């Protein structure tokens, strides 16, 4: 499914359409320790998915598996119907490489990870030149447009060290956005920020969400999660305990999810 769906999709899963990301029986071990014990997750086009749970629950590992920064030990990861994980032996599916996958999936990190030797504009332009083979001037023009979207056009010539954490993270969002990905992953995008800078980053994320972009967020900002989460997934000890559509934060059924939400309130 590579065409964009223009109509508004109903919140929550849509049984008719094939999910853009389909995870089945995903296991991940670091040495002898298994940290993910069989994850199943469907993410549909335009859906906004929130992963939450206590630290060490495996939510970041799930997120990082979606672009194979963590390689699953077992299980299936399909994006656009193409298998990128180990898969299942009986299936004879179209397989894709890591590089092909990462050109469809964007990512924003907790630590921003901007390249400090490049100005904001070139941070956004570099991956377009390298991954998409764009010329310098094409990449820069497209980058300027992406920076405008996150409200940082006037900071294009600034270097990361001259930007606040919030601004750096917005450049990182523009950098992911400029590659026109099918999905953007956010790994605790506001956790390294001063409290007063969180708002501007959430605002940019909200704007990205409003364009119909499929996004997956690991976050502890529950106000934001409540607001954008079409699908909300509570994880603990490497398993999905419970998940649900909009309103999940008030209607969750398992004791553990209730307990966790009460504790973080």
């Amino acid at each position: 499914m590579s065409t964009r769906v223009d109509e508004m999709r109903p919140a929550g899963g849509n049984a008719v359409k094939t999910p853009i990301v389909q995870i089945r029986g995903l296991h991940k071990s670091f040495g002898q320790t298994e940290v993910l014990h069989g994850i199943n997750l469907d993410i549909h086009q335009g859906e906004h998915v929130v992963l939450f749970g206590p630290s060490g629950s495996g939510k970041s590992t799930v997120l990082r598996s979606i672009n194979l920064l963590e390689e699953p030990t077992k299980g299936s990861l399909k994006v656009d119907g193409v298998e990128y994980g180990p898969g299942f032996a009986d299936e004879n599916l179209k397989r894709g490489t890591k590089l092909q996958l990462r050109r469809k999936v964007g990512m924003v990190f907790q630590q921003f990870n901007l390249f400090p030797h490049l100005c904001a504009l070139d941070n956004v332009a570099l991956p377009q030149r390298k991954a998409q083979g764009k010329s310098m001037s094409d990449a820069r023009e497209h980058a300027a447009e992406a920076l405008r979207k996150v409200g940082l056009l006037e900071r294009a010539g600034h270097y990361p060290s001259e930007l606040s954490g919030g601004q750096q993270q917005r450049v990182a969002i523009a950098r992911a956005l400029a590659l026109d990905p099918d999905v953007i992953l956010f790994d605790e995008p506001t956790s390294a920020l001063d409290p007063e800078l969180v708002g501007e980053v959430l605002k940019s994320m909200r704007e990205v969400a409003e364009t119909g972009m499929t996004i997956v967020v690991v976050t502890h900002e529950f106000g934001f999660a409540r607001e954008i989460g079409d699908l909300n997934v509570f994880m603990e000890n490497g398993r999905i305990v419970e998940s649900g559509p909009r309103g999940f934060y008030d209607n969750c059924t398992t004791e553990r999810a209730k307990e966790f939400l009460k504790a973080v309130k």
Partner: protein
Amino acid sequence: MSLFDFDWGLIWDNRGALINGMWTALSVSTVALLISTVVGLLLAVLRNGPRSVSWIAVGYINVFRGVPALVSVIWVYFGLSLVLGISFSVFQAGVIALSMLYSAFLAEIFRSALTAVPHGHTEAGWALGMRTSQIFFSVSLPQAIKIALPNIGSMYIGMVKDTSTFTVIGLLEVVRVTQNLVATTFQPFVLYTAAAIIYVIAAFAIDLVFRLVEGVYVRPPKALLGRAIRARQRRNIDKIVAKTRASSLATAQLFVK
């Protein structure tokens, strides 16, 4: 015997020969520096690689860091040339000897500099669909060079000083020139003082050059040289920003109408 009883005028009289000696020392060192930078970088990458190849780099580094320049140059000039059946010129022998030793030192400098670049930058590169080689050249290496530069400068000064041992193979560097002058003037104190001074001046000059180069790598560009080099890029960025700003304003006005 006071300091004034020496014939200090000798230094001025023989300035040409001494400067030529330093010129030779700098030439040998500069060629060797370029070679060691490339080889050192390769060794550093190998050293950080999987164990099946890293042992080669580890072995090389540990052996050649331990060999003195004097031994190395004799080994190359009188030994290696026999084995290979090539008669090296003294200049070539000096370059080879220095390159062998300093590749090992620079490998360690580059290894630590590459390690100092946060792994998150490589991960970001991967996540953005870049190849590992693209990330290395566009992201990791430029940052590592900046970190390594001061140490490379020190190594370069060390190289220039190590050329003094190449007097044993007859390279006409500063010490050899000084020895020749002493043989005819019998003024070792004066002439070796001159030699010392010329080495110190060279070290200062190298330090200055490396500081200038370091300035180019500072972000945001601060030093004059850094700003001058970035000026064109700066104008290009300003142009693109202005263009984007204008087109977004035009769209906004369209909405107002």
